[in-house]
């Protein structure tokens, strides 16, 4: 059935597609460079320079150049590092489940109210989230008042000052952005892909898992990376919510700087956060590639 003429035509049109249209400029676009120059300069000044300087400074301490800051960081804050990784991964997992569930639901059903309401936390600043969670989840907070009424148990432990409250706050603040991104990706998956699966007997849950998620893979990855990075880097929420010990790394960093003026260890902790992100992203990607190959 594979007629040579047919294949020839296919490869021909591929070549045509790759040829640049006549109105497209040359490859070395000076105008293009000039256009992105301001953005590049901003990026260099606001991001790359501080990044490099903090990496350099993390190796400089009163004892001179060396690993002193890292030694100190690990001896003082190893528990906090593990705690940070654990809390962030747990929050990420919950955000993933909630945002995929909402996006999946909205892909199949029209519900304008849900579509509006889930976005609200997007517009509430971290500080307010932290504060209101502190009030809402406190031992005598609103949640416990309601739960006491329902269960009849008078004194309930508050979630606000433990890891549970911290995770709830992170999730509440982070899931809307992830949902927004994932829903956008789900919406752009053609109906016929979904209908073809349903037609063959697939359930909606399976369609989400086996059709929508894989096709939206890159966007889901972006959503998860953004969630992870903004959770691990958030200072205000863990300042207001969570146990006094252990704490998240940004709290330790702010503590080093505010009370000890110790920029060296703070920078070392910062670099350690970068490394955590990079290592986890690497394992995630490797896992994804293995899934694809299977």
């Amino acid at each position, binding site marked *: *059935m594979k007629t040579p003429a047919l294949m020839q035509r296919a490869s021909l049109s591929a070549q045509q597609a790759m040829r640049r249209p006549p109105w497209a400029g040359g490859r070395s676009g000076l105008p293009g460079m000039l256009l992105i120059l301001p953005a590049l300069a901003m990026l260099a000044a606001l991001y790359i320079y501080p990044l490099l300087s903090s990496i350099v400074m993390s190796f400089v301490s009163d004892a001179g150049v060396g690993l002193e800051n890292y030694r100190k960081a690990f001896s003082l804050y190893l528990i906090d590092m593990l705690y940070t990784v654990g809390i962030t991964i747990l929050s990420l997992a919950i955000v993933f489940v909630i945002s995929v569930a909402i996006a999946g639901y909205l892909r199949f059903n029209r519900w304008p109210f849900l579509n509006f309401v889930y976005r609200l936390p997007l517009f509430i600043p971290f500080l307010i989230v932290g504060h209101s969670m502190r009030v809402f989840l406190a031992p005598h907070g609103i949640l416990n008042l309601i739960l006491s009424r329902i269960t009849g148990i008078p004194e309930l432990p508050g979630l606000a000052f433990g890891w549970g409250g911290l995770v709830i706050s992170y999730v509440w603040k982070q899931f809307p952005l992830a949902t927004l991104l994932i829903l956008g990706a789900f919406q752009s998956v053609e109906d016929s892909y979904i209908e073809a699966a349903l*037609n063959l007997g697939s359930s909606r849950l399976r369609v989400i898992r086996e059709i929508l998620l894989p*096709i939206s893979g890159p966007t889901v990855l972006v959503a998860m990376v953004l969630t992870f990075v903004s959770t691990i880097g958030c200072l205000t929420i863990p300042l207001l919510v969570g146990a006094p010990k252990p704490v998240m790394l940004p709290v330790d960093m702010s503590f080093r700087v505010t009370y000890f003026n110790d920029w060296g260890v703070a920078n070392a902790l910062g670099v350690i956060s970068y490394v955590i992100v990079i290592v986890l992203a690497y394992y995630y990607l490797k896992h994804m590639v293995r899934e694809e190959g299977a």
Partner: protein
Amino acid sequence: MATLEIQGLTKTYGQLKALDNVNLTVQEGELMAVLGPSGSGKSTLVRSIAGFVAPDAGHILLGGRDITFERPEKRNTAMVFQSYALWPHMTVLQNITYGLKLRRLSPEEIARKVEWALDLVDLSGLEGRYPRQLSGGQQQRVALARALVVDPEILLLDEPLSNLDAKIRYRLRFEIKKLQKRLNITTIYITHDQEEALSIADSVVLLKDGKVLQAGRPEEIYSNPKNSFVAEFLGASNVITDLVLQDREGLYVMLGGARLPVPAYKQPGEEVSIVIRADEVELGGEMPEGDHEHVSFSGKVNDQMYLGSRRRYEIETVEGHSLLIDSDRELPTGSVIRLCVDRDKIYIY
């Protein structure tokens, strides 16, 4: 394999009736072509059979079972989409296997069925490719294999060939037909190409504005179009409108100096349509005396176009009507000639 019955199916979108009291029966093993212009409700019809459109009224029975409100995944219909809808993240093999995995078959059974399907559509060797690495015709076959491998009760094809170029389309249409007969599977085939519909269908349904205009065997519907729209849609190139005249002998209309009787349900002065197919008129020559089978009329050759195997002439009658007639005769432009046509090949509505 099962008989499909559609009873009084109606679907409205706001003011628009996408389906308007549609009644159809597709017998077991029959291939029914649904033909109609764009927006006539063809897709809405198959999509409601597959369960993606909830009808406002009416019933759909598949093998005697009422599936009108059943969920799509429970219906056991198999649809082939115009865009093929092959999942881009799965290989050919994964695409075809998907429906089988959902049915929880044993790995041996799955392997056996996949091999059968690949063989059926002649795709062996391409299992590992992704859809983007296939030509349009190959993608079409994968879509067909994916639909057939699950052993559906009915096959729904929504313009399955319209994204392909003419030559491949021509070949694939007969392949689909052969497959369908071999598997003896009840099939609905949507198309807006009348030739495609007439050439492969056991029965043809013509839809317009959500209504069934005519249904029947291809020969039947081609030789007895119910109205001028059906006739025109089935490939009549000439639809002439004129006014009904009356004399002692009854109602008539004039064409090229010949008198054509008009059906009695018409009123004098009313508009009437005369439908003549381009290839059913003979150009030149005289009709034998006393021949009542044919109508002879005259016209002037206004223009002509060379089409390869024949010529297409534009003929103007004395009434000022212009007709397109195909013939293999060579006639000079400007000449006045006689035309001859079978009496029952002139349709008057």
